[in-house]
């Protein structure tokens, strides 16, 4: 994959990013990071309910999920994204994937705090696992 094509793939995948994060400051920071990677639209959701509503209203091309939200986990959102075949990656404070449900263990994951390199790495991982430029992701059913 040549450099231009890689950039195009990343831009394509980041066109509309859904950031699920219960801390606004972290979300705003992530917003800057994904915008730098070429995101045209960024949606921010702080809870499972908000995120599900957002992805029903305007399905994103990529979702970054904070695993632990206020009093809940993001896995119901991940289930919905898997169902809709929308690529997603986790951001977590825990560096332990053992607590993840089996069906989400294969999804890329970055530990908090994360920077642009970490974000770029998970996006590349998603592209690597897709048939074509971030259009269809490999099913990761456990």
């Amino acid at each position: 994959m040549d450099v231009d094509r890689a950039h195009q793939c990343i831009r394509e995948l980041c066109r509309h990013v859904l950031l699920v994060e219960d801390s606004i400051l972290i979300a705003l920071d992530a917003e800057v990071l994904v915008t730098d990677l070429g995101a045209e639209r960024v949606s921010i959701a702080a809870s499972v309910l908000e995120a599900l509503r957002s992805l029903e209203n305007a399905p994103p091309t990529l979702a970054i999920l904070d695993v632990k939200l206020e009093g809940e986990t993001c896995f119901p959102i991940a289930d919905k994204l898997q169902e809709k075949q929308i690529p997603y990656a986790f951001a977590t404070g825990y560096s332990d994937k053992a607590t993840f449900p089996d069906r989400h263990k294969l999804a890329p994951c970055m530990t908090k705090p994360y920077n642009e390199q970490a974000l770029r790495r998970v996006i590349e991982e998603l592209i690597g696992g897709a048939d074509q430029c971030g259009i269809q992701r490999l099913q990761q059913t456990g």
Partner: protein
Amino acid sequence: MPSLQEIAHTVTGLMTVSGAVSLVAFVILRRNFDISLRLSLSLLAAGLIAIGAFQFSLALKVGGNARDFISILTIVAAAVATIASVFLARTAFNSHLISALHHRVEAHRRTLQRLRRSRIELEHRVNDRARELREYEKRLRIALRDSKITVFMQDPALRYVWVRNAPEGFSATDLIGKTDDEVLPPAAARAATTAKMKVIETGQDSTTELYLEPSSPGQRARYFEVTTEPYYGETGEFQGLLSVSVETTDNRHREELLKETLLEVSHRTKNQLSVLMSIARRLGATKADTAKFLPAFEARLRALSISQDVLVENDWASPHLERLVRAQLEPYLSSVTRRKSAIVFSGPDVFITPTAVQNLGLVFHELALNAFEIGVMRSPGGQIDISWDFHDEPACDSDSGHQRLEIRWKEIGASTPANGKLKSSFGQNMAHQIAHSALGGDLEIVPSNDGFQARLKIGSAAISFS
């Protein structure tokens, strides 16, 4: 043919000898002295009489018929003495037999008495032992009561034969006669049996942790620490296994809770680090100069730290709005401005949810920083009036409440050129974004020639109504 005299000599001699032998026998065998004494004395007497008569006949020098007569008399006397002594001996023997019988009866009676005494003593000892055993049993029961400890014995086929203080959910009577396979869930039974077989093989004590998966959903998993040792009888033969089991479920759950808490702490720490990184990155974008960046970063760090302190002193429950705002202003107050009248609060009691505390704290920190850097608090007479009340607002979507809190920040006492912006562009952006995205409201900075004025509206999600 011996003469009568010779016979008399022989008889009397024999009698004297037998008398002497009997005396010797009497001396040596002192025991049966009744018979021997009487026999020997009578024989001796008869012998002496015969010898006396015989000697007397010799002294009188009688001859012929008289001597024969004396000899016959001697023989008769010896015969009479012998018969008398036999009779005496018989009587003595009989009396000896009676007394021997009497002695034996007496001995038997004594033996019987001894036996009876032994039996009573034995009964007492058995009773004492039984009482002692009951006492031990009672003490064991008291020691185990309300404890998580179970003591049990299994035979060599690993069947329960004795159980004290069965764990909750098990009963001793149900366990007796059964094996682990019949009373435990399969995985636990396998683990228990394996461990016990090893004890039988090696003869060494061993401690195993047993995990009992929940038998139905909603029940919690149980943990037991079982120490098993081989049990030998008094003659050293293997009789089975003796085990002490301690239920450690509560400890394990506490451990798990602690682990979860540590994970939660780790999560929060990572989140805080992410927040700091976000602030550093965004602040860094507006302040390229390290000398300017550091104090600005430090101020925000302190604002986060203050919000944390407010939460901690409130035991992570919702703090009062005034407490939070006052805490954020505190680092900037001098002894003069700390005068009560410099900052005036008015409004109903409002409590902020723990989640919103950090965000709201940052917004008020930006307002406070602005007031002390370019606002009214630069001059000694400056005053800030902070007031709030609730407003009913039509809900724009289903999850934002009908009530909103409006907080007004009004600086009085100095005219500040108001351009509707905070001095710090970072603070300006962050405060607006927080108010909009995290607090479900907005921040409005009102241009005014009288002094800086701001209006912050926040949604009901940030307010604790309980």
